[in-house]
């Protein structure tokens, strides 16, 4: 079985994120990291391999992004992927969800995976959509926000929370599954794995290499357009208490509750 893990480079959580008013795109400069949700996808792949009910021949990390995204791939390899694939091309800049999903699907097509795993959302985009877009292009069944996977060679039994409680769904392979952070605790990479990550095979593709039609990606190929960026409605900032003396803190909180007739 070949598992492809989609990964994404995102601005580090600690870095103040902002939107560039000129390009109307997320300013992606500054410190970057591997999307934390994607580390759960890689861990899920590792656990399927280690459990052994499905024989996993290869775990491949796949990303789309500028040159700097190589670091996210190195991190993915340090966490357990055997090799990585980097789709990078100027023509992809400014791609929306529709264009990004298409480009990733074309890249995955060249790998012919039995299972595609990814994080259910990214720290910067917060959308649950990419997995389902990719799946429909690949004509594969798909499930998002999965918190438990039992895999064998032919199928997966997945659990997730949906609108009315927990759903258990059987999915035949090949399939595309996005995972939530409750699925596992990603392991820490060993120093050896971190040092060795740069030596693992990394393939770089331009759009033409994987058959991506140029007019379906990038800003030109996108189907949505950012018309304006506005600040959110003003909300009066709340009061903040730093707890130094807990008795004093509690006194203040009780007074606050009392003032609002909540006691």
């Amino acid at each position, binding site marked *: 079985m070949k598992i492809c893990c989609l990964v994404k480079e995102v601005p580090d959580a600690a870095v103040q994120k*902002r939107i560039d008013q000129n390009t109307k795109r*997320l300013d992606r400069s500054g410190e970057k990291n591997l999307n934390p949700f994607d580390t759960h996808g890689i861990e899920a792949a590792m656990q399927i391999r280690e459990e052994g009910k499905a024989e996993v021949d290869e775990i491949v990390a796949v990303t789309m992004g500028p040159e700097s995204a190589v670091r996210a791939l190195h991190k993915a390899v340090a966490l357990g992927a055997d090799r990585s694939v980097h789709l990078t091309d100027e023509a992809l800049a400014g791609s*929306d*969800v*529709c264009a990004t999903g298409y480009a990733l*699907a074309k890249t995955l097509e060249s790998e012919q995976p039995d299972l595609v795993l990814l994080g259910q959302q990214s720290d910067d985009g*917060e*959308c649950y*959509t990419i997995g*389902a*877009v990719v*799946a*429909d292009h690949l*004509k*594969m*069944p*798909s*499930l*998002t*926000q999965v*918190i438990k996977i039992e895999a064998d060679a032919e199928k997966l039994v997945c659990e997730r*929370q*949906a*609108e*009315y*409680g*927990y*759903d*258990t*769904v*059987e*999915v*035949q392979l090949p*399939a595309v599954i996005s995972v939530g*952070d*409750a699925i596992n605790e990603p392991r820490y990479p060993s120093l050896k794995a971190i040092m060795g990550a740069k030596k693992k095979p990394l393939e770089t593709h331009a759009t033409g290499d994987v058959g991506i039609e140029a007019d379906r990606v990038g800003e030109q190929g*996108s*189907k*949505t*357009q950012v*018309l304006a*960026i*506005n600040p*959110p409605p003003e*909300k009066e900032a*709340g*009061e*903040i*208490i*730093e*707890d130094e003396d*807990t008795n004093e*803190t*509690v006194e203040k*909180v*009780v007074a606050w*509750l009392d003032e*609002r007739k*909540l*006691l």
Partner: protein
Amino acid sequence: MGGILVYALHDDEGNFNKNSLGAISEAAKLAGELGTEAAAVVVGEIADDACAGLGAHGAAKVYRAKSAPEGLAQPIVDVMAKVIEDEGFSYALFGGGLLGFEIGAGLTARLNAGVTMEVTEVKAQDGKLVAERPVLQDSAIVDVGYVDEPGIIIGRLNAFDVQEGGGGTAEVVDVDVELSEWSTKAKMVTRGEQRGEEINIEDADILVGGGRGLGEADNFKLAEELAEALGGAVAATRAVVDAGWYPYSAQIGQTGKTVAPKLYLAAGISGAIQHKVGMQSSENILAINKDPNAPIFEFADLGVVGDLHKILPKLTEAVKAKKGG
């Protein structure tokens, strides 16, 4: 100009989802402004009356695919893609919820259509729809327009209010859809399983919400003791419910309940959007968290930066003393 098509989700008893009804109401309002009609898609064996009843929320027509299963996205993508193409709909609109995200995303691929998610407001502008979407932990709001039709709009949970008493009865049209081969490769084994005991959090005036910051399941005791002293109930985040620390029935947010108590006291909750959408209408929000950068402090009325293991027991005692005295 084509109409606006809404997916109406229902449970196994055939009750329509509140967020879906809200989306129908919103679609009807927008369709009125654009001079077109709103319609809904329903899958499964839902009775004529129930389908026609969606007219009360503003649906002019209901397309029913009896043989398509409810609960998984891809068969519904097949149904909606066919209805959109055959009937020339200009937009598809979804209320908040997991399936809306999946179906909307599937339609994006199938129809090569633009999609916007987590939408909090939709406006008609020059004969087209523009979606407002908060980004970066709600620190900015982007207006998104569509280059082509159809455009896919996926709402945030509770973004669209249910309106009653519009329209009347919807015309029910049965559609026959052949499912894609890959749409039949996922099968529901069990749907909507409840885990843990039944807890009523929706009627409580005061809720103490517990999150990962509590550290472990046993520490929910601290939240329970405080809730008891305050005369309220205990709620939980998805993370701790998935971890098995607290029952699903107490979960607030995206795939849980929506509450608006007089007081919401968030203990060890970071305040991710998925949680925020379920409790942001609370009258008073008090947050205790050791991380000063936790997003919850952005919308709490009172924030306490500190160790809840120290603060909660003392607060419980102080509340008891105050109420007793």
